[in-house]
């Protein structure tokens, strides 16, 4: 079909609508299994450590991505960390507005080289700052399923 007028929509000319009806299962693997089991059963985070490279991985990896040694010693790194960086997220995946903006943060877990990307909970936009100490808040044990959503977010550190 020839086009004789200016088009402003991709659906103006003849076209075919399509989607990709494919579903997946992503197994956690050894390190992921250990990490989420510790969250679910004990409400704490695990990491793995490469002494040779002086790196503590959180979430844990079953290998050091620098020297490629196998890592199988899991250490409890606790649930306290600090805000390494943050953003105030306004949009849903479909471009619509979130009911309220949410603070997404990279939480560096104390004494490690890694951490968790999750929401801040009970901390306002005015209060948030880089370096702010925070602590993980988990769902009640009975509601945990062994996934990243077992974490409600990170809030002020309880002393």
């Amino acid at each position, binding site marked *: 079909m020839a086009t004789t007028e200016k088009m402003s929509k991709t659906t103006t000319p003849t076209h075919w609508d399509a989607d990709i009806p494919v579903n997946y299962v992503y197994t956690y693997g050894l390190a*992921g299994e250990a990490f989420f089991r510790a969250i679910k059963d004990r409400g704490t985070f695990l990491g793995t450590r490469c002494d040779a490279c002086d790196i503590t991985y959180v979430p844990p990896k079953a290998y050091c991505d620098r020297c490629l040694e196998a890592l199988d010693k899991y250490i409890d790194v606790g649930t306290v960390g600090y805000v390494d960086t943050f953003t105030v997220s*306004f949009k*849903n995946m*479909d471009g619509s507005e979130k009911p309220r903006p949410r603070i997404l943060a990279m939480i560096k877990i104390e004494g490690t080289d890694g*951490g968790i*990307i999750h929401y801040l909970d009970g901390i306002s936009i005015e209060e948030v700052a880089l370096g702010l100490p925070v602590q993980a808040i988990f769902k009640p044990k009975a509601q945990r399923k062994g996934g990243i959503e077992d974490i409600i977010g990170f809030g002020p550190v309880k002393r």
Partner: protein
Amino acid sequence: MIKRVAIVGIGTTGFRPITPDVSYRELIFEAARKAYTDAGIEPSEIGGFITAAEDFLEGYSICDEYCPDQIGAVLKPTQTIPGDFIQALATGYMMIMTGAFKTVAIEAHSKASNVKNIDELMGFAFDPVYNRPLRETPHAIAGLEMTRYMFETCTSAEQCARVVVKNKGNAMRNPYAAFGADIAEKDVLNSDPISLPLHRLDIAPHADGAVVAVLADGETALALSETPIWIEGLGWCTDTPTLEMRDWGEAAYARLAAEMAYKMAGIANPAGMIDFAEINDEYSFKELQHMEALKLCRPGEAGHLLESGATSYAGDIPINVSGGALGVGHLFEASGAHKILELVEQLRGEAGARQIPDVNIGLAQVWRGVPTATGAVAILSNM
């Protein structure tokens, strides 16, 4: 004689927000025809072909199989690189350096307007177990990077907004660009908050378009072209995909790719040697972060250099005189293709209203976008 590789032909469709009149293959066909005409070569004479494309953006499984037709590569040595055009350029360079190929054609395109929910697609690039369940947009990851970068370098939101003003302004002189505009910093800072500190206008909008380039070995290049544009340096690298283990403030992937390219090109003092650069600005702050990673200035200096006018069209080191991704459009795997196109036109002296006078060495740098940490650098010269 030291063996060299040159770009002897280049063709493009230009870049537009949507291209509903043609299929992606017809888009590529147009760029290929123009490139082969520019090089003075028939596709039957070309030794090998490479397309830079990625299945999910194409909406095809094994999209490689759909690449040969429209570039004249049917029943020829052809392959697809699931990366940026500059990564494909590096492969083409190496193919010619083996001596097995005298000419190689490289293609990249974007038909982003074919994807109805592109944020969802980019979100599918996140780790499915640790990150995807949060259902955050890719822009949120860029927002995390921006906060940390601004903190570490004392860069202001106004400086980031000024990148947008500069690049959209530059794009007004570029007939290929889709998003040229005359705006002010306050327009950027007052635009819709997406993932603060990122506003709507800090983010490069998607565009469609295709580019094809023809590479040749030195001898063939001198026979084919009066203005061969030589590939002097190439580098590429990828950081860990684990977001939680990343350095959020620094673009290490760009620094290391640049070091590789500078070493190959014999450039010890990039700020003094590079005449102009096309660098990734898919998000406003990325231009500043990448300038520092490329050692065009020291960490924390990029915003001040921008404010001094040094990186503007008439400055000492023009950055993104084409308009960059903010002005031309975000082209996915064709991002590097657009940058190489700009370098070639500038170095040939064919850049029209945006021609920078007396340029000999240009640098192109790409990043594969959120959530990747892949970067590539190419250095071209006309000498």
